[in-house]
């Protein structure tokens, strides 16, 4: 049964079936081969997997992000970061990093970040004279910051999958590693820009210029504050925060930027509804898949196999990290979280790894896997959007990827980096 499940999964992915359906199809195959469970568990698990209030943060965050774009809040944010850091050497590269950090995680998918705001900055960089491959590589790697810095849809889904950690705890745990990732990429961008002599796009802005661009960016900058402040202050849950963000984005779009109208509103709801449908279908069918892995006792067998191999916590950490990285090469972040968390989180706990620390390690690891050659999905998106050759893009990514792997290693080696901030706020486990 396990073999049928995994083989169908691998083959299905390779022939190009949609990722969500592959998990349903391989689940169905395993049920057929095993014959122990009736087929109704398929719809039962599929329904149960998404019948969750915390999960509702996902479609609502997607909607809020779409409304921000439609209401041009995103534009002013981009303009502001450009004025702020665009004038230093390699400036647009820093804009790229900074925007990824500010937008981080509202879309929740590194793929969406790469194709959305990422693609816009990539084009800006290219027009400003940066080599196309460097612009592409930087955009691909900065897209991985999204799932780490709060608010992050990936973390919402993680907390639904492993109920020992809370969304608020996860959000806080991601702050330091996310900022480290951003700083590391900015540092590499600085070194490369200096060595290759990339110029800055504009001259240094005066204080008036900064202020003029800061004011329109305020509504956009307030968004993460409202979300995080509300959740951490115990005012509302992550799902409610997302609904408040939706209401805020609508109000700001109607009354502050005045770019949202009654005519455009249904289109925004439709677009985010369909994106939500696609994302939630993955969650729904991945629940079938991960339920099968659990009843097939895959986590237990893996734990036994690992403990026969070694009892050193450091070795286990490395093995887990390599395993997750390899999985991240083949699977998108979202399904990987749903599939891997129930398998690996108990194993990690057994070896004395803190659940929050493991959660950050898994998320960061999977995010980096998205840009790792040969098959990082974000690379595909950047290659197609930017009309670049995949092999050359993969080579251009390497120095940036190296920096990300250093950050990952440090985050894995020092649990305090993930755990200190949540502990300050009283999230202990």
């Amino acid at each position, binding site marked *: 049964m396990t073999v049928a499940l995994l083989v169908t999964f691998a083959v299905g992915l390779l022939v190009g079936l949609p990722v969500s359906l592959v998990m349903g199809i391989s689940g169905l195959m395993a049920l057929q081969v095993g014959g122990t469970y009736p087929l109704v568990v*398929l719809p039962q698990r599929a329904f149960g997997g998404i019948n969750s209030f915390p999960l509702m943060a996902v479609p609502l965050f997607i909607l809020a992000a779409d409304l921000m774009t439609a209401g041009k809040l995103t534009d002013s944010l981009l303009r502001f970061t450009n004025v702020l850091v665009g004038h230093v050497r390699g400036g647009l590269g820093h804009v790229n990093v900074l925007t990824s950090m500010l937008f981080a995680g509202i879309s929740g998918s590194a793929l969406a970040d790469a194709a959305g705001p990422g693609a816009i900055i990539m084009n800006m960089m290219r027009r400003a004279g940066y080599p196309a491959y460097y612009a592409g590589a930087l955009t691909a790697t900065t897209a991985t910051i999204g799932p780490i810095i709060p608010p992050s849809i990936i973390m919402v889904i993680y907390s639904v999958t492993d109920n020992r950690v809370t969304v608020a705890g996860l959000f806080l745990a991601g702050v330091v590693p996310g900022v480290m990732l951003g700083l590391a990429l900015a540092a590499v961008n600085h070194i490369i820009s200096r060595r290759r002599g990339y110029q800055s796009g504009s001259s240094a802005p005066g204080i008036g210029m900064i202020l003029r661009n800061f004011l329109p960016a305020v509504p956009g900058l307030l968004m993460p504050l409202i979300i995080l402040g509300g959740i951490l202050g115990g005012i509302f849950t992550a799902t409610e925060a997302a609904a408040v963000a939706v209401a805020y984005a609508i109000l700001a779009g109607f009354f502050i930027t005045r770019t949202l109208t009654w005519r455009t509103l249904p289109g925004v709801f439709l677009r985010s509804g369909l994106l939500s449908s696609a994302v939630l279908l993955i969650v729904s069918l991945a629940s079938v898949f991960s339920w099968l892995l659990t009843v097939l006792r895959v986590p237990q067998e893996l734990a036994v196999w690992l403990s026969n191999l070694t009892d050193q916590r450091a070795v286990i950490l490395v093995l887990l990290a390599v395993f997750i990285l390899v999985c991240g090469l083949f699977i998108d972040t979202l399904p990987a979280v749903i599939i891997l968390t129930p398998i690996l989180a108990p194993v990690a706990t057994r070896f004395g790894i803190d659940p929050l620390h493991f959660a950050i390690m898994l998320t960061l690891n999977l995010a980096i896997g998205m840009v790792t050659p040969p098959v990082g999905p974000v690379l595909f998106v950047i290659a197609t959007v930017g009309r670049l050759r995949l092999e050359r893009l993969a080579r251009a990514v390497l120095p940036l990827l190296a920096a990300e792997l250093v950050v990952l290693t440090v985050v894995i080696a020092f649990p305090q980096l993930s755990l200190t901030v949540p502990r300050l706020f009283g999230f202990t486990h």
Partner: protein
Amino acid sequence: MTRAGTVLTRAERLLVVANQAVIVGLMMLMAGLVFANVVTRYVFGFSLNWSEEIARYAMVWITYLGAGLAMREGQHVAIEYLQSVLPRPWQPYVRAVVWLIILAFLTVFTVAGFQFSSFAWRQRSPVMGWRMGAVYLTIPLGTMLFALHLIIGAREFVMKDINADELAADAARQAGADPVTADPPPTPPADRS
């Protein structure tokens, strides 16, 4: 175009528009209910305990009733890299096989969904007391709708040129990317020739 042809196209348009309207309505309902609950709790001091249940079901309905439309808009991520390195004449055949697999899966899923719904027909939802069987109906109805969209869009699906710009367009659509323009540098020229 033949008369039967125009009737079919009109029916298809109607299906798409109706399906879109359902998704927009459910999204508004879901967001509205969750927000209303926050407002009533802080402004009026009471919680709408039924709002959570309805919002949750609305989310499941959005997922399954939107999946077919999402497919036609290219929202379902697939790794089409292997297909794209195949010789061009082979690609439609591989895509036809993929199309058939999806249809077969949706058929089985629909049957299992109806079974599940009828098993649970007598159960009641905890707050509203709705028939769970009726709530569960969204799965078979949704997968049937998905299959319908798949069949209508069969030609586009099989003949899709995965080497061309479409992937880029898909990816951009997926992210809901607007042709946003950024200042100081002037409007980016749409990066496709």
